[in-house]
């Protein structure tokens, strides 16, 4: 069984290396299919491993294995080891499964791009890194995966590196994630000093020995990493910019897998978080603020991918609320369904962008339902799942989180409950604003000119692009049925053993009540969107909500976070660096030696009749004379 996990991990790496080495010797399409087949094989291996895991009795479902010692010094030692349990299995299946579909989608989407092979090499590298993150059996190796997904995300955001904006976005994503890496690294130092081990088995067994303060600090440090990677407040500003990358990248990395790593991290470290209630409360607060803010910002954005990006941030904030409430299964369940419907929405957006020759502004869309009915239908399912309309998947998982809040019932949980319901309303508005402005109403002049023509020629997209979308549509429609309140418990039962401290599970009536309220609010949101955007043309002033008003301005500027960071960090750092370079380091380096010993040496150089290399010669001479003289003196004295 562990062999299969290793194979699943090694395959994308092998694919990456093969594409790197073979390079231009491969035909372009061949590179795409190698990348995709490797993913299919990895998925099959992961699925087989999961089935074998499910066949074991519950108490034997945590398997670990060490390949070799990776790093060792003194009493510190960390191995290249894997940890395979129920949570790993879920992540493994999501990453390889959705990853495979997105690879196939990319075969069509990236066709004609001159850098086709490089793209698939990077995609495989990403999947390897992500698998490393989820199968790692200790915190250091998790950090390695954590950093490598950041690296591949950097490479893929900046894939079109001729574009200055793409390069800038890639750097921004990397640096903000490096801040997260530092958080995890320092957390690892603390845990090693306190517990003497960084393996999951060792840490979790001894988690109870930590006092609350230490556990809280350690968890907050891990949370810094989680927040950066999952684009949550206050380290979220890189995600919307990351949409500069190709759309399949947004679907894979910035929707389905990498950005949910923060949720995985908190769920994985639940034995530690169980010792740190304040840290869990912080997780909830971050989630509440993030889901409201991102949902509100999504309502006023005009770039189709950025709308979905803010939606992703908002949905991950829901997951944070879930794991923060100790309803780890609900958070991971939402991660699971979200992977389907969000990847679907991104890929649908990709189809639209593809048909419009790269246009991403929804003001240049409109009325596309007529020419792209398949895309419209699939995205509609995705949108309904996102809003959480019964019986599509997102509703079950989101309501599981919210009803857990209801079940916990503390003041903070009540705040989360109400915020989550308001968030459902916002989700309805921004999701269907997008649907209506893109697919309904009158076509914009640009779409009129391009879209019918493009669709006539290529259809809505090549089969490699459409089939993955169909499969995801089915997933977005039905995965929620795994966990129907009062009927099925597949997800809860599967994940229950990962939390030794137990998980929050709401009762069926609580869940159905929440579903009722949430679906109603979602429908109200859709109605508001219909009222605002479904009438007539998609004119600019209608798209913006209350133009010129303070709140709208704040939302359009994304609540000024970017501006804040520029004033507080970027400008002072640039100024300090420039100042040191111009006025301190440069002059000091010239001044110091030349006024002191430098003058002496230069003088010596001149007296020894300097030619080009006179200084060296004189230096060597001084050196030799000095040593020789001293030796002579000592010899004479010693003799």
């Amino acid at each position: 069984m562990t062999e299969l996990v290793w194979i699943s991990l090694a395959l994308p790496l092998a694919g990456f290396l093969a594409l790197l080495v073979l390079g231009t010797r491969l035909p372009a399409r061949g590179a795409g299919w190698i990348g995709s087949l490797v993913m299919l094989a990895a998925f099959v291996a992961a699925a087989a491993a999961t089935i074998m895991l499910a066949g074991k009795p519950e108490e034997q479902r945590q398997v670990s294995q060490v390949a070799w010692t990776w790093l060792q010094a003194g009493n510190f030692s960390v191995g290249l080891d894997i940890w395979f349990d129920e949570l790993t299995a879920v992540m493994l299946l999501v990453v390889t499964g959705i990853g495979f579909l997105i690879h196939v989608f990319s075969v069509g989407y990236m066709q004609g791009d001159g850098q086709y092979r490089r793209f698939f090499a990077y995609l495989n590298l990403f999947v390897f890194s992500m698998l490393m993150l989820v199968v790692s059996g200790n915190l250091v190796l998790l950090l390695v995966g954590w950093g490598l997904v950041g690296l591949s995300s950097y490479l893929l955001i900046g894939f079109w590196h001729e574009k200055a904006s793409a390069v800038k976005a890639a750097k921004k994503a990397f640096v903000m994630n490096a801040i997260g890496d530092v958080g995890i690294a320092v957390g690892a130092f603390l845990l090693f000093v306190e517990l003497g081990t960084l393996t999951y088995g060792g840490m979790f067994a001894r988690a109870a020995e930590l006092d609350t303060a230490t556990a809280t600090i350690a968890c907050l440090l891990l949370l810094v990493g989680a927040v950066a990677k999952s684009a949550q407040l206050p380290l979220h500003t890189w995600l919307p910019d990351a949409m500069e990358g190709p759309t399949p990248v947004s679907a894979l990395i910035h929707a389905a897998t990498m950005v949910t790593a923060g949720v995985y991290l908190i769920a994985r470290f639940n034995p530690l978080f169980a010792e740190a209630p304040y840290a869990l409360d912080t997780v909830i607060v971050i989630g509440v603020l993030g889901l409201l803010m991102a949902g509100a910002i999504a309502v006023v954005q005009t770039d189709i991918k950025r709308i979905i990006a803010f939606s992703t941030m908002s949905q991950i904030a829901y997951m944070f609320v879930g794991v923060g409430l100790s309803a780890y299964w609900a958070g991971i369940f939402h991660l699971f369904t979200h992977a389907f419907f969000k990847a679907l929405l991104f890929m649908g957006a990709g189809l639209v962008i593809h048909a419009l020759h790269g246009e991403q502004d929804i003001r240049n869309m409109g009325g596309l339902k007529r020419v792209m009915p398949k895309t419209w239908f699939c995205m509609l399912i995705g949108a309904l799942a996102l809003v959480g309309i019964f019986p599509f998947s997102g509703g079950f998982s989101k309501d599981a989180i919210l009803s857990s809040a209801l079940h916990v019932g503390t003041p903070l949980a009540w705040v989360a409950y109400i915020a989550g319901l308001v968030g459902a309303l916002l989700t309805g508005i921004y999701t269907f604003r997008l649907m209506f402005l893109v697919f309904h109403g009158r076509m914009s002049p640009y779409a009129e000119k391009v879209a019918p023509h493009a669709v006539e020629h290529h259809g809505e997209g090549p089969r490699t692009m459409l089939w993955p979308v169909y499969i995801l549509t089915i997933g977005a429609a039905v995965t929620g049925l795994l966990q129907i309140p009062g009927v099925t418990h597949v997800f809860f039962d599967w994940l229950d053993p990962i939390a030794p401290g137990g998980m929050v599970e709401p009762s069926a009536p609580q869940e159905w009540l929440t579903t009722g309220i949430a679906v109603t609010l979602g429908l109200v949101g859709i109605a508001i969107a219909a009222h605002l955007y479904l009438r007539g043309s998609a004119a600019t002033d209608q798209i913006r909500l209350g133009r010129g008003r303070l709140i709208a301005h704040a939302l359009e500027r994304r609540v000024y976070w970017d501006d804040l960071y520029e004033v507080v960090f970027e400008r002072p750092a640039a100024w300090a660096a420039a100042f040191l370079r111009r006025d301190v380091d440069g002059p000091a380096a010239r001044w110091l030696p030349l006024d002191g010993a430098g003058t002496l040496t230069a003088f010596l150089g001149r007296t020894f009749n300097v030619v080009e290399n006179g200084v060296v010669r004189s230096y060597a001479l001084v050196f030799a004379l000095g040593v020789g003289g001293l030796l002579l003196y000592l010899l004479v004295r010693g003799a």
Partner: protein
Amino acid sequence: MITISWLIGVAAIVGLLVTVLPFSRRAGGYLALLGSLAVLGGVIGFIYRFEPSAGYQFGDDVAWIPQLGIRWDVAVDGVSLAMIAVTALVTACAIGYGLWAGRDRNHATYGLLLLTEAFLLLVFSARDLFAFYVGFEGMLIPLLILLAIWGGAERRQAVVQVVAYTALGTLLMLVGILYLGLTAPDGPSFAMADAVGRGPDWVFWVFALAFAIKSPLFPLHGWVMPAYRQSSPEVAAVLSGIASKAGGYAFLAVLVPLFPEQASRFAWLFIALGLVGFMWGALLAFRQPDSRGVIAYSSIAQMSFVVLGVFLLSDLGATGATFQMVNHALISAALFLLAGWAETKAGSGAFAHLGGLARNRPILATVVLIVGMAALAVPGSSLFASEFLILLGAFAEAWWLGAIAAVGIVLAAMYMLRWISAVLHEREGDLVGSLRPPDLRSGALVAIVPLVLALVLLSVAPAQLTERIDRSAQALVAAAEEVAP
């Protein structure tokens, strides 16, 4: 059995012959390359034969100048082994690069590089203070000649700077060494073992000064910029890659074990300088207008980190610092060869003229990316592993120290990402079109790839190196660690 003396001898003799005899460029170059490869082969043998628990190995100890108690006492422990290995590899690559990529090199340049290697091997293996001094001081002579004759337009100024700084340090150190040697209780002896714990504070300080200049440690890094800017690429690679390691190594293997009490007493100062230097170098690297500037200041930052690791006076810190030196040697050598390649081909290294190199240059882009990512210590890289050890050691010493130093990870990401983008991405510079051949080709590539491969191997299994370093590093700091309150 082959001992370290053999390797020093091969490097010195071949180096001297190639320098002095009137070889052709090609003949001299290949002879020197052969010599450096022979040394590398010997070192690989050492790596296999090395016994981590056996202390000093592959050594010779014979009377050299018996009247003064000066002995040719050389031997290799784990820390030395790491430094010797990286010295042999970088030298071979530098000679190969000069031979294949530099069309205008004189045969003597190869010989001088080999002579530098011989002196460096002596530094890294000397167990006698006088022999150590000969290596430490002697390596500067071939390097200065290389800089003075084959350097850039402002080489004279650079030579003056280097001499001014180093002469200051090393001549004082010589006085210190003579003092220690002549005051030995049983007649004059320069053996390091006889000098342990005997030195007064002033000797500690003159040693520290010499090593700090060489490292270079803030604020004594003034010679670095002109020297690294004016050298030809392969000399810059040797200077920043391995010559500067003499300083870091000497802190760990000479200063700390010989002066355990002072090292422990003044550790705070070196830790503070390491921290400041790290931030200083990183900030300055962030605003440099060309590759050499970025590499030079990032080197200052990295070596400051090494000094920080050494003066933690702990097992983790010392092992991490040694490992860090190996990583930095490989990275800065590779960076200088890469940057130097583009710069000498195009005629300028300024980012303004030389950007957007990724277009149609898949090999260059791949190598630059790998080395760049290794240099910013992306998790999983060997530099990450060594920084992790140092930072963990710092955290174990004092939590705030580890936390502050960890911020460096972000700074390193900032300046290296800027460098990668400035070289590879966005608009193509106006001189890019003049690159011939347009992409990295066999010659320069063959010289750079071994460095990259070494980095990759160390990233896959860093424990292979650290388990060889660990015990020796521990032994070097043990006495100072015990003194610590």
